[in-house]
């Protein structure tokens, strides 16, 4: 499998480390239920899925990779910092 890092270009997947689904991060103060859902109760679709990978053996960038879990087709790669997953500003 190969992933096209927006900063480095197409690289072998051995340069990347997988984290999990790319989901909006709840506020730190959000309750246990919301965090539990975020960490443990995730969809497992057979099809397109947005997920987080880090180019840790390359530039270090966290990436939002859109991948079809059934075919492994790469549908898109973007820098995670631009992906709108962040805790909304102003929350510590």
């Amino acid at each position, binding site marked *: 499998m190969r992933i096209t890092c927006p900063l480095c270009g197409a690289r072998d997947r051995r340069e990347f480390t997988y984290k999990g689904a790319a989901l909006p991060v709840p506020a730190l103060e959000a309750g*246990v239920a919301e965090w539990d859902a975020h960490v443990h109760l995730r969809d497992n679709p057979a099809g397109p899925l947005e997920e987080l990978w880090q180019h840790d053996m390359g530039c270090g960038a966290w990436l939002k990779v859109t991948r079809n879990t059934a075919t492994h087709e790469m549908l898109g790669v973007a820098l995670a910092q631009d992906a709108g997953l962040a805790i909304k500003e102003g929350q510590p």
Partner: protein
Amino acid sequence: MRISGKGLVSHNRTVNFSFNGKDYMGLEGDTLASALLANDVHLVGRSFKYHRPRGILTAGSEEPNALVSTGKGAARDPNIRATQQELFEGLAAQSQNCWPSVERDVMAVNDLAAPFLGAGFYYKTFMWPAPLWEKLYEPIIRRAAGLGALSGAANKDPYEKAFAFCDLLVIGSGPAGLMAALTAGRAGTDVILAEDDSRMGGRLLAEVEEIDGKPAHVWVAEGLAELEAMDNVRLMPRTAVTGVYDQGTYSALERVSHHLPPSQSLKTAHRPRECFWRVAAKASVLAAGAIERPIAFRNNDRPGIMMAGAVRAYLNRWGVAPGARITVFANNDDAHRTARDLVAEGVHVTAVIDSRHDAPDSGEFPVIKGAMICDSAGRQRLESVTIRSVNGEEKLQTDCLAVSGGWNPSVHLTCHMGARPEWNRELAAFLPKPDAVPGMVVAGAANGVFSTHGALQDGAQAAVTALAGMGTSVDAPPLPVASDAPYRISPLWAVPGKGRAWLDFQNDVTVKDVAQAARENFRSVEHMKRYTTQGMATDQGKNSNVAALAVLADATGRSIAETGVTTFRPPFVPTSIAAMGAGAEDQGFKPQRYLTSHKASLQRGAANIEVGLWYRASYFAKDGESTWRQSCDREVTMVRKAVGVCDVSTLGKIDIQGPDAAQLLDLAYTNLFSTLKLGRVRYGLMLREDGFVMDDGTTARLGENHYVMTTTTAAAGQVMAHLEYLTQVVRPDLDVRFTSVTDQWAQFSVAGPKARDLIDALVDEDVNGETFPFMACGAITVSGVAGRLFRISFSGEHAYEIAVPARYGDALYRLLLERADPFGGGPYGMEALNVLRIEKGFITHAEINGTVTAFDLGMQGLVSKKKSCWGKALSERDGLMDDDRMRLVGLKPVGAMQVLSAGAHLFDPDATVERVNDLGYVTSVGFSPTLGHMIGLAMLSGGPDRMGDTIRLVDHTRGIDTLCEVVNPVFFDPEGGRVRG
């Protein structure tokens, strides 16, 4: 029998080799198989289950029978296909799966026991009782499993792995592959042409035909010369593409030096035996050709019964006639070429037996139409066959039978990403599903296009299509003139009749076995495969699978299309573990990280211990010390009484800068860092998002917006990735930057009552309780070098960590030791460091094992109530603060056996030792010379509530069963007076 002057071998260059200890002579250009056939050797091995005599069946990598071992001792290579092994001077090969010899094999009695060894034999025989598995069944199966054997010794031969990149990967160099490579090469694209065979050209090397008015092999040579002259084309012979993976990744196995004598290949030329390639290609053309399939009939497995295309290849490429009276048995026109070519060379062809009533006539050899071969005879070599026709049965004397049941396109690689091939009635074959692999275009025989003209045209068009897919537009080139003979076939899988008719030659699977599997309701093709072991040998059933499923379809009353095929998976050819694991044997490519103090430590008698990739001093043996414990005890006492020096540079160091640096620390750590004053250090705890402890360490504030964080050695990489996650994903709005500086700074712990005296005298600045109180930090100068000083302690002693740029590490370490000597101090290693921290109840990743919370470690107070932090929400889940959780305690031994052991489990003294009564486990132990007994840390259910209790400690692996007392995990100086003093 060799035909003088015939073929592409060098008739004037002989090569000596041996087979089963007997010397033979072959020619340059021979394979082991062609040389054996030239010497009239047909019996080369024994089958797996029945130990039946077996000969050479094919001329390629699909060979199921002719497997041999080459090499000696540790370098022995089992299961080498004689059809692929190129001959070299001195080659010594041996048969496998036979004892004492291939001619007189004791295990051949299995053949008589055949009625008991049918389908499902393993499953039916090796049933319960379970205890017999380990003692009886498994050893029997292991002895029987596999044909060749490894030596058992480590193989010292070199293997390699490598990456390659190209625009177009062309797989196979027959007419389709060559034409594709020429088309793409001429267009200037980067091309890799990979060919399994040692010589490029595919079937064109094995056939008598003309292309553009020249012999086909001459046209091949000209095409290869043109490709060789192109800088953008790379030819890779002896390279089998073994797998297809996502985004245009292909694996390939190159047999780099199997064709050379060991002396040339390994020592002088420094060539590996094999290289495992990962090829990244924008597109590929699969032109892997087709594999001929046998027809099953009674006793169709005798030496001398071969594939018709293979007989033609041995004749035309290697100048070998595999018999003196050759018979052909076929259901298609293509096989008639075998008879034609043999007759042209003066070899006697008894007849072509064709199952079709409308088979073509020939003026050169008799054709018996509408007939089949229903049996054969001959003990170790074919002597006769029995022909069944409308006239009844008739015996025919023959020493070689060339069989063809038609051709199976090599669709394997098109299935590696999940696609299934599709049945084509007209060709009686499975064809690749269109667009089965993104970016792969299939051409030629692999695509069911069997004529040479068709393959040339298909190959050229495949290249045009593949290049168009990557945005390069080329015109289809003019095609050379070649034969366009039609492929006419009428399916015939198995000749009806009694007796055993073989499908899978290597695993001894017969038509009866498949029918029996169907009767026993193993009707799915995947079930049939596993029940009969059809296609599960080293050849993966390349020439037998389709016939087997056709027999299954017949037995279950379904069509072949309904029955389907089993799943083709990588690797396409057997791949040695040595090649896939190249670079990982012994030290391999594993980095070795040495400390700047490494050399000086060794000079001081250090014994090294591996900590991840690091090599650290474990202890420093002095004269008169014969065990590590003696050194360790001395070093601990030295630190407690005087001063010790220890290299702690392996701790992760992350330099953090920016206006929002403190916000990042508040996010990552459980406790407050935004209140940390300039010139101060604070201990911190980090949680994972699920609320469990990730790591601990200290962070120092060096400037207004400048911090340096330390992590544990074990989690340095994990914490770095985590901070990247927090700043890139969770809070990209933070104005902060950080980088790992672990390798940039050498850092030494100086610990003990004399530490201040040593440091104060060493650095230019005044170091005293006012300027450097406990948990202070700041810039210092030592011998003119700017460094940093941190008053932190991992030993509970008055201690400092002093850091200088790594290039001064060696000098500073030597200087520190020199200054420590007059105080009665010196270096201490990891063993002493561990005892010192256990005496203080300080945790490491022995305790932070992924299952513990801050609460479990007695550190709930470090989780600030004034702010949120990463992981806090889930750390407050019900149950994670339950008093009964396994929580950190200290242990000391009581009773006769004054011993503790890490990994031991804890029980109530009156409870039975079983899992339900397990109260916890020991994480760290050491002998404390300070206290005079062993001490330990443990995670114990309800631990802090059991202080003073007696607990039973059981370690089955070390045979320890003893009692200990639950105590405060801080064994030494619980008030902390020494560290502040």
